[in-house]
């Protein structure tokens, strides 16, 4: 599964989600869901996927429960609950089997997204661990000046601004240097950009995609 092109996986996720709306049969949806569960076995990060699937199932039950409480028919409630699980799980499968660089390469080359925005996605994810560490460090620095997180939730949120402000200000100062650095690395003048990440569609991609279309079509027809 990891060897499929990113765009194939994106399309499959969308396909499954659309397919789940093309049928009003609970059994059909259960088949789709089982398909996704089978896909989990092809993943390397099975443990994480299994956990995520469990959490989604819990959300589905909660959704089912809320709808029943508000008087929706059992079958309708079940339909929307399972649909939600299918859609969320399809994205989880896609994310856990594709590297970020592959996703952005696919978005730019095959989904025609402007490179600026695809780049921003990877850059945001790159800085997340840095800022996480910084938030801890700022929190400690402020604690050493007497900051403590107590009192009612609203007060705690307002006090938390003391942790947020230094980070925001630091980000603003850093943005200037980062902009200069990107310009120096030829970011805005790049016309013929190449991509190291693989985006070519192989035989396997077409086979798998065709397989899924056939299966979904059959399931919808049967149920």
């Amino acid at each position: 599964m990891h060897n499929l092109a990113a765009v194939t996986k994106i399309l499959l996720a969308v396909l499954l989600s659309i397919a789940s709306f093309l049928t009003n049969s609970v059994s059909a949806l259960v088949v789709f869901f089982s398909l996704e569960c089978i896909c989990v076995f092809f993943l390397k990060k099975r443990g994480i996927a299994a956990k995520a699937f469990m959490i989604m199932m819990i959300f589905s039950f909660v959704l089912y429960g809320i709808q029943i409480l508000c008087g929706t028919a059992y079958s309708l409630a079940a339909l929307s609950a399972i649909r939600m699980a299918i859609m969320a799980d399809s994205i989880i499968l896609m994310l856990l089997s594709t590297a970020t660089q592959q996703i952005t390469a696919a978005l730019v080359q095959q989904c025609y997204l402007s490179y600026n925005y695809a780049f921003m996605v990877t850059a945001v994810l790159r800085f997340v661990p840095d800022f996480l560490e910084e938030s801890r460090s700022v929190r400690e620095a402020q604690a050493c000046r007497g900051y403590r997180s107590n009192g009612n939730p609203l007060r705690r949120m307002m006090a938390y601004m003391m942790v947020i402000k230094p980070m925001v200000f630091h980000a603003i100062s850093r943005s200037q240097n980062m902009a200069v650095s990107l310009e120096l690395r030829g970011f805005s003048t790049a016309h013929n950009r190449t991509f190291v990440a693989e985006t070519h569609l192989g035989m396997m991609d077409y086979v798998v995609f065709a397989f899924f279309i056939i299966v979904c079509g059959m399931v919808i027809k049967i149920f």
Partner: protein
Amino acid sequence: MKSIRFCEEKSEDLRWLTITTLLLAIGVILRMVSPNIGGISLNWNIVMYTLAIMLCRPTPKQGLGIGFVSGLVATMSSKAALPYANLVSDPLAGLVCATLASKYLLDFKIRKVSLEPVLLVFLTTFVSGGSFVLITKVILSLPMQVFLYAMMPAVLLVALLGSIAGQILYRPANKIFNATANVSAENKYSLKDIQMRVEKGAFVVITGVNGAGKTSLLQTIAGANMNYFDDVYNSTIHINGIDVLQTKRGELKKRIGMVMADYEGQLVTECVSDEIDFSLENAGLSIEKILQRRDDVLQMVGLKDMAGKKIAVLSGGQKQRLAIAVMLALHAEILILDEPVAAIDPEGAAEIYHLLQKIRESYHTTIIVSEHDLKYVMPYATQMIVMEDGRMKKAGSIKECLKYMYDENIYPEAIPLKTKIYLKLGESLC
């Protein structure tokens, strides 16, 4: 005579991109760590990108793109129950926000205090949250009661909290953002009297107090476009036979690599190998060439076994070496480093300079470094430049420059101990 580059067209200012990226990253972690009331907290993503939009006032199209990035990041980083909804609600909100912001449509003032932040964040959150819950309701056929009495009030509450946060953050943020951006003609910084002639393979060290113009000089040589910078007057800069002031920026960028003081901000991808690929991809090199060069440079800087690792787990010294590797991969004939060892411990500092010397010996690269703590660079440097107040005060061998600094009392604090003692002794015998 103004340098030719001053007359060049200014390239796109990428600040909108960088500030949005950094603020969105903060938004992502705040969702994870900030205090909340029973699971409901501000939607920090929205507050942050609205703040970014207010700071740089992009076009509506860019706002749409920013919203899309936020939606994508939200989809990829959180286990959202309905991921696709973010991909519609956030771009829509981003578009609305940028349109309103670009025309300052919500800029109402009460006693000189602008209410734009609170109004804009509220509206943006309402549009984003409202469309999100609406899509959710329709797709999952949720009952109307849940929508009207639980979801919409939650959206309104989140919008209210977010708008307060936005109001508190905007004014000081704006002050800092515009500190360098809107510099008036009189306040622009310029350099004067720089007479620099550097041969290929030299190792130059530039010194001077903070504010003397070292960074501006280095960035000028590298071909950077600084909005607070005027130009270089009455100067000639020849490096490796290139007349820097008469060469176009694009040409300079191809041949010169710069590692800035904030090297963390220069590393923009997730993995070590991706970082090296980034510059090479921009240059349009073929994949085979990229892979070959990547291996070569990682070997050179000693990071070969870290190729697949995430940048976040590298130490300060390793990140610095990665930044150097990135420049090497572009076959830069001139390598510029701005205070490379400022925040690194002594062992790491010695290693960096050792690496620079190795690079110089292997590739005959010209190295230009700005430094305060001269003891690390003394064994390697062949030439020195002393700066003060934007002017070059002295250029020559290390010995000549240190003596000059001592005699003229220009930044004498930086003179290494031994030299200082010898100079003082020499003086006492005269």
